[in-house]
C-alpha cells in the first residue's frame, strides 16, 4: 500500500513548506526572544529576564482576569444566542419582536455586521452607548437635562462588559450563520416532528436532540470565536479598559514601545497569550464534555415537559437587542462618514460633508485594488488547498493529519505581532520582500485556517451514502469530487470562501510588515487613520472595508439559490 501514501506525503510536504514552516520559524524567533536571544539587539545568551520583567508588570493579574472574563463571557453569550436564534429560524422558539417580519431575509440582514471589520463595529458601538453617544443625544437634553455628557463608564468599563457586548454583537452573526449552514446537514424538521410525536416540547426537543448533533459540527468555529475574543486588539483598544488593558494589548504595547529592548518581554507576553489560549480551549472542551454528560442524564430521565425558563426570557430579549445594536453601530458610522460636525447633545449632525468620500475617490483605487487582489488570491488558494487536503484525507485516510491540523491553527493561536517579526526575518532570509506575492502568502497563513475551519465539519458530515452509490455506479473518485461533493457542498464552500475574503481584507500587520509598507490596502490606510480617531474617516474606510466581504457573502448566499432555481426549471 506504499503507493497510496505518496499523495498524502506530498500533500504534507507541500503544506508544510507553504503554511507550517513559516509559522513554526516565526514562532521559533518569538520563543528565542522570550528566552533572551535576539541577535539583532546584540542579545545572544539564554535568560529568563524577559519573563521576570513580564510578571513584574503592574496590573498583570487584572489584565488576565479581564482577558479571560471578556473572552469566555462573549463566546458563551454569542453561542447561546446563535443556537437560540437558529431554533427561532426553525420556528421552535417564540416570537422575537421586530425580527419575525424579517425572518425570510434573516441571512441577508446578518451580512453587514458579519462583513464589517471588528474595529468599525467597535467604534460605532462605542459612539452609540457612550455617555456622549447617539442614544444619550437622542434623550438629551429634553429628558436627561444633560447639556454636557455625564462621567459614566458605559464604554471601557473596568470589567470589560462593553468589550464583551461588542464581541457578542460582532460574533453572533458569524456563529449564527455557521449554525444555519450546519443545520442543513441534520434533518431538523423530521427529527423534531418525531420528537413531538413522542411528547417532547419544542424547546426540550431542540435541547435534547438537535443541539447534541449541532455542536460537534460547529465546534471549530466556536474555538475560533473563543480565540479571537481572547486575543483581539482592535476591539479591546476601543471598548476595553486600558489601565491595565487586556493581555493582547499588553503585548502590543510592549512590542510598540520605543525602547526596542522591550521586544524581549513583549515576546514573553505573546507566548503567554498563546499558552493562555491553548489552556482556555482545553478548559472549554472539558466544560462542554461535562455539559454533554449532564444533558445525557437529563435525556435519559425522559422528562418531556419544559418550563419556559428565565434563560429563555433573557435570550428572547437579548437577541433582537444585540442584532439591533450591531446594525445601529454600522448605521451611525455611515452617518458619520457624511458628517462635518456633530456636537453633543444634537441628535443629528450639525453640518454635513461629502469631502471624505470625494477625497477618497482620488486615493482609494490603488488600495482597493491591492485589497481585492490579495483577498481573491489568498481566499482562492486557501479554498483550493483546503479541498485538496480534505480530499486526500478522504481517499487515503490516516490519522497523521490530526496532529498537523493543530499546526494549521497555530497562526490563530499566537498573537500576530509575535510571530510576524520572526516571519518577516525568515521571509527576508529567503530573499522575499515587499511584493504583493509575499503579502498574499502571508495572508494565506491566516486565511487558510479560517477556510479550513469553516469547511471541515460540513465536509465530514456529508452523507457518505451518496458517494457509495456513485462509486457503485462506477464513478471515478474525480467524478465523485467534482459532481457530488463540490456540488452538494457548494454553500459551505462559498461561505468558507467569503469568510476567507473577510479575513484577508481585515489583515493589518501582515500587510504592513510583510509588504514592507509597499502594498497599501484599505486596512493599512484605515488603521493608520483610525489612530487619529476621526469617526468620519473611520466611517468611510470602515464601510469600504465592509463592502468587499459584503459582496462576497451575498454572492455566497445567492449563488446556491440561483443554482437551485436553475435546477427546478
Amino acid at each position, binding site marked *: 500500500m506504499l503507493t497510496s501514501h505518496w499523495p498524502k506525503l506530498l500533500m504534507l510536504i507541500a503544506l508544510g513548506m507553504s503554511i507550517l514552516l513559516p509559522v513554526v520559524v516565526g514562532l521559533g524567533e518569538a520563543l528565542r526572544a522570550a528566552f533572551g536571544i535576539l541577535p539583532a539587539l546584540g542579545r545572544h545568551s539564554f535568560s529568563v529576564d524577559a519573563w521576570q520583567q513580564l510578571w513584574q508588570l503592574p496590573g498583570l493579574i487584572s489584565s488576565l482576569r479581564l482577558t479571560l472574563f471578556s473572552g469566555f463571557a462573549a463566546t458563551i453569550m454569542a453561542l447561546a444566542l446563535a443556537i437560540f436564534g437558529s431554533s427561532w429560524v426553525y420556528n421552535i422558539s417564540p416570537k422575537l419582536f421586530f425580527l419575525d417580519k424579517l425572518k425570510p431575509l434573516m441571512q441577508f440582514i446578518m451580512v453587514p455586521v458579519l462583513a464589517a471589520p471588528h474595529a468599525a463595529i467597535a467604534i460605532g458601538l462605542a459612539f452609540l452607548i457612550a455617555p456622549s453617544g447617539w442614544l444619550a443625544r437622542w434623550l438629551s437634553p429634553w429628558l436627561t437635562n444633560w447639556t454636557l455628557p455625564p462621567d459614566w463608564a458605559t464604554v471601557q468599563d473596568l470589567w470589560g462588559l462593553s468589550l464583551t457586548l461588542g464581541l457578542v454583537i460582532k460574533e453572533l452573526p458569524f456563529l449564527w450563520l455557521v449554525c444555519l449552514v450546519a443545520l442543513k446537514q441534520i434533518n431538523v424538521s423530521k427529527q423534531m416532528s418525531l420528537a413531538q410525536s413522542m411528547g417532547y416540547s419544542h424547546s426540550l426537543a431542540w435541547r435534547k436532540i438537535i443541539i447534541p448533533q449541532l455542536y460537534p459540527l460547529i465546534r471549530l468555529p466556536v474555538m475560533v470565536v473563543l480565540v479571537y475574543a481572547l486575543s483581539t486588539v482592535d476591539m479591546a483598544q476601543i471598548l476595553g479598559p486600558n489601565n491595565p488593558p487586556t493581555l493582547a494589548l499588553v503585548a502590543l504595547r510592549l512590542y510598540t514601545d520605543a525602547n526596542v529592548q522591550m521586544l524581549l518581554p513583549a515576546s514573553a507576553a505573546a507566548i503567554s497569550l498563546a499558552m493562555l489560549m491553548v489552556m482556555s480551549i482545553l478548559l472549554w472542551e472539558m466544560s462542554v464534555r461535562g455539559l454533554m454528560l449532564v444533558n445525557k442524564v437529563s435525556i435519559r430521565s425522559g422528562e418531556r415537559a419544559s418550563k419556559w425558563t428565565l434563560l429563555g426570557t433573557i435570550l428572547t430579549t437579548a437577541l433582537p437587542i444585540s442584532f439591533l445594536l450591531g446594525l445601529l453601530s454600522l448605521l451611525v458610522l455611515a452617518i458619520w462618514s457624511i458628517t462635518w460636525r456633530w456636537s453633543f447633545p444634537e441628535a443629528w449632525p450639525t*453640518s454635513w460633508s461629502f469631502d471624505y468620500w470625494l477625497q477618497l475617490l482620488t486615493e482609494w483605487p490603488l488600495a482597493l485594488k491591492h485589497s481585492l487582489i490579495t483577498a481573491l488570491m489568498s481566499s482562492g488558494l486557501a479554498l483550493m488547498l483546503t479541498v485538496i487536503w480534505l480530499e486526500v484525507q478522504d481517499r487515503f485516510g490516516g490519522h497523521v493529519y490530526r496532529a498537523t491540523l493543530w499546526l494549521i491553527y497555530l497562526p490563530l493561536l499566537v498573537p500576530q505581532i509575535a510571530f510576524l517579526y520572526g516571519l518577516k526575518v525568515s521571509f527576508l532570509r529567503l530573499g522575499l520582500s515587499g511584493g504583493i506575492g509575499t503579502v498574499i502568502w502571508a495572508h494565506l497563513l491566516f486565511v487558510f485556517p479560517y477556510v479550513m475551519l469553516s469547511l471541515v465539519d460540513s465536509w465530514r458530515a456529508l452523507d457518505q451514502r451518496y458517494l457509495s452509490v456513485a462509486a457503485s455506479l462506477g464513478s471515478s473518485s474525480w467524478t465523485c469530487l467534482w459532481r457530488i461533493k463540490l456540488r452538494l457542498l457548494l454553500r459551505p464552500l462559498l461561505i468558507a470562501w467569503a469568510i476567507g475574503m473577510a479575513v484577508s481584507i481585515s489583515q493589518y500587520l501582515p500587510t504592513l510588515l510583510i509588504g514592507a509598507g509597499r502594498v497599501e490596502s484599505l486596512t493599512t490606510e484605515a488603521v493608520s487613520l483610525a489612530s487619529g480617531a476621526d469617526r468620519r474617516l473611520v466611517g468611510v474606510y470602515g464601510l469600504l472595508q465592509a463592502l468587499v466581504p459584503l459582496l462576497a457573502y451575498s454572492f455566497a448566499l445567492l449563488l446556491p439559490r440561483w443554482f437551485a432555481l436553475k435546477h427546478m426549471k
Partner: protein
Amino acid sequence: MMTFLNNSWATQLSSIVLMTSLGFLSQMTHATSTPQWQQTIDQGAGDTVYWHAWGGDVRTNDFITWVGEQTEILYDVKVKQVKLSSTSEAVTQVLAEKAAGQNTNGTVDMIWINGANFLAMKEQELLHGPFVTDLPNSKYLNLGPNAPATVDFTEAVAGLEVPWRLARFVFIVDSKRVAQVPLSMAQMLTWAKANPGRLTHPVVSNFMGTTFLKQALIELTPDVSLLQQPATEQSFIAATAPLWRWYDEIKPYLWRAGKNFPENESIQQQMLSDGAIDIAMAFDPAAAAAGIASGLLPKSARVFVPSQGSLGNVSFVAIPYNASHRAAAKLVANFLLQPETQARMQNINVLGSFSVLDPTQFNETQAQVFADLPTSEALPTLTELGPTLLEPHASWGEKLKQQWSQRYSQ
C-alpha cells in the same frame, strides 16, 4: 552657492506656487551644485522615497503628498508615504532587516522620528549618517552647541537626523466652556476640584501621557537642572516626590476618577469635541486651529500654555543605515529645509507647524514670506506661547512611565 535667490527671482518668490515652475528647477539645480551635492542629485533622480511616517493626521499626509509632487518636479524624486499607526513599526522593520542580514536595499528610506525611537535606532546603529551638513539647506539651521536642532530629548543628534517641524506641548480648551484656564499645575488642581471628571490625560504608555507627566514634573520638581542628566534611582525619587503628591491629590477628580484614560491624544481631542471633558493636550501649537479647520473641534477651541512655558521638541527625519534610496531621501530632506517649504508648513491653512529654521539666516524676501502668512484666532503667536521648556533626558520619561504604572495600575 545657493545664490538662486537673487533679486529678480526673489520678487516672485512670495508665491509658493512658483516652486512648481520648471524655470525654478533649472535655477535651483544649477545654483546648488557643489560636485558632491550634484552627485546626490544625479544618484537620486528617478527614485521613489518610501517615507515611513505616522499616518493619523490627514493634513500631515496631504503635506507629505505635496512634498512628493514638488520633489518630483525638482529632482525627479517621488515620495510615497508609508502610513504607520506607530513609529516603532518602522523601527521594527529596519531591525528585522538587520536580523536577516539585509544590510543594503532596505525598504525604509526615511522615517519621521524623534525621542525614544531615535535613541533606540541610534543605540542599535540603525541610522545612516552623519549627513545633515551635506544638505545645502542646512545653512538655514542653527546648529550651534545645544541649539534645539542638535539635541533630541537631550540626546545629541550627531548629524543623524534632519529637523523638519517644531512641536510644542499645549493644552486645548473650548473657550465657551472654560473661561478661566489653569495656568499652573497648582491651578490645575484647584480647577479639577471645582470641575470633577472634566480633566484627563492620555494613558501613560502613550507618549502624550508621559509628556503631560513630564510637563507637571518640570513645574513641580525642586531642581530642574537635574532632569537634564540621566535619572538615577536617588535623583528620581527626590525629583519626583512632589509630582506624586500632586498626582495623588488630583487623581480622584480626573475623568472616570483616574481609573481609565483616553488611548491617545486624538481620542482625548474627540472627547473634548464630544463635550465629555474640558481640556485636551497636543504637541502642536496649531492643534486647535487645525482641529477647527478640519471640523474636529468647535470654532471656540483655543490653545493655552502654562505661564512658566511648555515642553518643546523637534520632529526629525532620519535615514536608516540600509536605505535603498539614500540619495533621493537626502534630496527630500533638503527640500523640507527650504524656507519656502517651511513657510508653507507654517501656513495655518496647510499644516500650521512652526518652522525649524533660524530666521536670522533669511534674506528679506524669505522673511516677508513668513510675515505674510495668514493668521487665525485659534493660532497663538510665538510670544503667546512663552518660553520653551527643555525635554528631560529620555531616561526620565521611561522611569515616569514605570513608576506611574506601579502606583496607579491595579
